């Protein structure tokens, strides 16, 4: 990739790292919220509000 390969690789590496971090965190957050909610008995009524 020529003399500037380091800059190109660094740009893509930072992007991949940030995106993997965001995806990983969002999945982890979802899993632990689901786990915490399982401790409550299932309810017949669904929410009125968020």
């Amino acid at each position, binding site marked *: 990739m020529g003399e500037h390969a380091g*800059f190109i690789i660094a740009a893509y590496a*930072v*992007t991949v790292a940030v*995106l993997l971090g965001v995806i990983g965190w969002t999945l982890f957050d979802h899993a632990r919220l689901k786990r915490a909610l399982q401790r409550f008995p299932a309810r017949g009524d669904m*929410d009125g*509000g*968020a």
Partner: protein
Amino acid sequence: MPWAPGSNRRFSMLKYANPANFLWLADRLIPWLGAAAALVLAVGLYLAFFVAPADYQQGETVRIMFIHVPAAWLSMFCYGLMGLSALGTLVWRHPLADAAQQAAAPLGAAFTFICLVTGSLWGKPMWGTWWVWDARLTSVLVLFIIYLGLIALWRTIEEPALAGRAAAILTLVGCVNLPIIKFSVDWWNTLHQPASVFRLGGPTIHPSMLWPLLLMALGATLLFLTLHLMATRNEVLRRRLRRLTIVAAQRGERAPLAAGKVA
């Protein structure tokens, strides 16, 4: 019973604004949207690296454009989405609008960060500097700081409804920055190049680079929408958990141990 299609509820677009229906829809949309994002990004990356030529002036560094421009686009798209959600919070007081807005802020910060870092890594070999305090770079840095400020605001105010309204007002005030970013390259002298894709008179980029760029922008937008659906779903669940924990506490029951950590 969770609501499902086929029940006798009257159809309207607004039914997806009900949090329970939103969760049902999000669970079904997320895998497809995520797969579409992966596919489009894979094709886009292939074209960006193996089909698009090196630039006659910039050489291979032009490959950075294929992530820098989509990140820049999403940093502003995300803020526009938050502005609309802020209207939803203030005008209609809709709880889902606040959840959507809160979920978007960290994503906006992430894409703005990518935009700034890739821009810096592109600027060093092309301009000879990592950073200049010119209008475009500074206004995007301000956008990044606004995202961080909004995230801090939600964390500072404990009452969610109050935090939502305060954040919505700050979001709308911050919208003034969007046209400043967009037109900064026209209004002021800057090192940054003027618009070459979304401009009157059509794009000035050669099609061999324009098509990979548009595909990368589409793929990144699909990825953003997937992540935003996932994060909004998390916010809805977090609020449900908070409510259930409060109700349980009011009944004098012992709240489940893990609940406090996540709520």
